[in-house]
């Protein structure tokens, strides 16, 4: 089988499949593209890992002694917060990656190809899901080294991992939307701190929300990150999860229902800056 100089004139037949098939196939081509880049720019992954490790050390050894939590040791309390914070900040990577593709004109190229309209975004979010999973595994190892002792059984682990993956995927789509709105790497990074800091710190990540003043406590208790952290923490420590479990699921699914269509529609109209 030789490839003719003029593929069209030679009548090369393209396989005919459904749109859904191509959305997945094109998404996979681009996810693969994003994943093979990770080891080629190792600095990015190294820094993405060092930052949460510093948070673990900071809270375990500097603040931890001064923070009271009920029912378990502070390091056991802390690690679910670290996992979810790490994943949430991973959403910024999605936005940065898209902004970079826009700035370099790659999105123009992709948009001029007869490929699926959602593939650039699914390729990015799926690759970031894999990347986040890797970083969380590293964090788990670090946690075990500093005294984290999860008590979950197989079912608890499965549920916790499933929920973290779902949360990672959902937040990645928020990152994608921000990347397409701001279209510049620097702007996405700056904005990341503005929306991610309140969400991750005004939550149950590092302290129990009971001690927060009224309005802040109300916010912390009703925002998605607290629900996801409480659910993951309960599952990993084999404690009752309560309403946090289904609320976390509802939040993640809700975020996907809003931000997937929103970012795909932005992508269709987006222009490089």
């Amino acid at each position: 089988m030789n490839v003719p100089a003029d593929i069209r004139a030679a009548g090369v037949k393209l396989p005919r499949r459904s749109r859904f098939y191509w959305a997945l196939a094109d998404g996979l081509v681009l996810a693969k593209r994003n994943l093979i880049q990770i080891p080629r720019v190792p600095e990015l992954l190294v820094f993405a890992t060092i930052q949460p490790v510093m948070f673990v050390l900071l809270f375990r050894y500097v603040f931890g002694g001064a923070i009271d939590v009920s029912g378990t040791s502070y390091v056991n309390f802390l690690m679910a917060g670290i996992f979810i914070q790490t994943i949430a900040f991973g959403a910024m990577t999605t936005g940065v990656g898209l902004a970079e593709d826009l700035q370099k004109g790659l999105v123009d190229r992709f948009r001029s190809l007869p490929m699926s309209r959602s593939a650039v975004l699914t390729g990015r979010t799926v690759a970031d899901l894999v990347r986040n999973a890797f970083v969380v595994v590293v964090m788990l190892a670090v946690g075990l080294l500093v005294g984290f002792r999860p008590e979950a059984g197989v079912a608890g682990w499965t549920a916790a991992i499933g929920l973290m993956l779902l949360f990672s995927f959902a937040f990645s789509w928020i990152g994608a939307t921000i990347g397409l709105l701001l279209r510049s790497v620097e702007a996405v990074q700056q904005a990341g701190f503005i929306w991610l800091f309140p969400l991750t710190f005004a939550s149950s990540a590092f302290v129990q929300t009971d001690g927060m003043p009224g309005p802040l406590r109300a916010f912390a208790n009703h925002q998605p990150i607290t629900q996801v952290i409480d659910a993951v923490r309960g599952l990993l420590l084999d404690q009752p999860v309560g309403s946090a479990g289904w609320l976390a699921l509802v939040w993640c699914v809700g975020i996907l229902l809003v931000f997937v269509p929103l970012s795909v529609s932005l992508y269709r109209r987006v222009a490089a800056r």
Partner: protein
Amino acid sequence: MAQSRPAILAEGLEKSYGETRALDGLDLEVEEGTVLGLLGPNGAGKTTAVRILTTLLKPDAGRAEVAGVDVVGQAGELRSRIGLTGQYAAVDEYLTGRENLEMVGRLYHLPKSYARRRADELLERFDLTGAASRLAKTYSGGMRRRLDLAASLVFSPPVLFLDEPTTGLDPRSRLAMWEIIGELVSGGTTLLLTTQYLDEADRLADRIAVVDAGRVIAEGTADDLKARVGGERLEVTVTEGGDLDAAARVLRSYAMGVTEGGEGNVRADADRRQVSATVEGGARLLAAVVRDLDFAGVQLDDLGLRRPTLDDVFLSLTGRAAEQEAEDPARPEQADKGEEREIA
């Protein structure tokens, strides 16, 4: 595809970004197998036109067809009939040359083995085989452009769009790019290319459309356009304190297109102590001009002939230099232009 239809057809395209009108009723027609050069300064609307014709933007008004397919209504179908090479070399720096082309092939939905062979063939053709396994970020500017161009040819599109394909390249890479583009065109590809350089349009295009303020202000072959500017530009620089007016009087008697008492195309620039005029007759004219200037007592620093540039074409068509706009694309252009038009 109907044979009689033009490969690219645009009628009354309009596009605004807020207050700025990027396209203001642009019309284009490119016959199958020919090359149209879209020539104009920065901010003239060339890129906007290309973005509309390649489905990246929707026009506010007007319609366009490429390869017999409507750019808005049948955008999906159209994308499999075009290739686009944008202003930046849109290659993924952290993929190798081969990986870049294979990825594009896969996104055109070529089967894997085809995508692979097609990539190898294009690498060979664009002289990149030796660098095929290196990351694109190690490529030189010229190599990146070639890879970018190769990517737009993966599916042998019948219609190709090149947006400023040689901007930022060194002269050697530029020549190499011209050769490649020339070969493509001789293979029957319809090409629309935008450029700021007349020599590039001259070398590559069958017809040239000069674009200004979002519309085509002149169209024709390179020879047509040059004829409108006329011959060559004679430039005289007088010494410090030299008599610029006397020099201008002398040049007026040689300048083309001088009408009753008018300035014709004689331009004086006091700051640079320079007078220039469009002349015909080339080098043999120089001796006579020097004699006349000497007779008029004008002391010279420099005197020379140069070929018409985009600036000259532009100046003769609009009465304004092309460069000024390029310097400040942010200013509210429409109001300014309207005024200048009236004065001119």
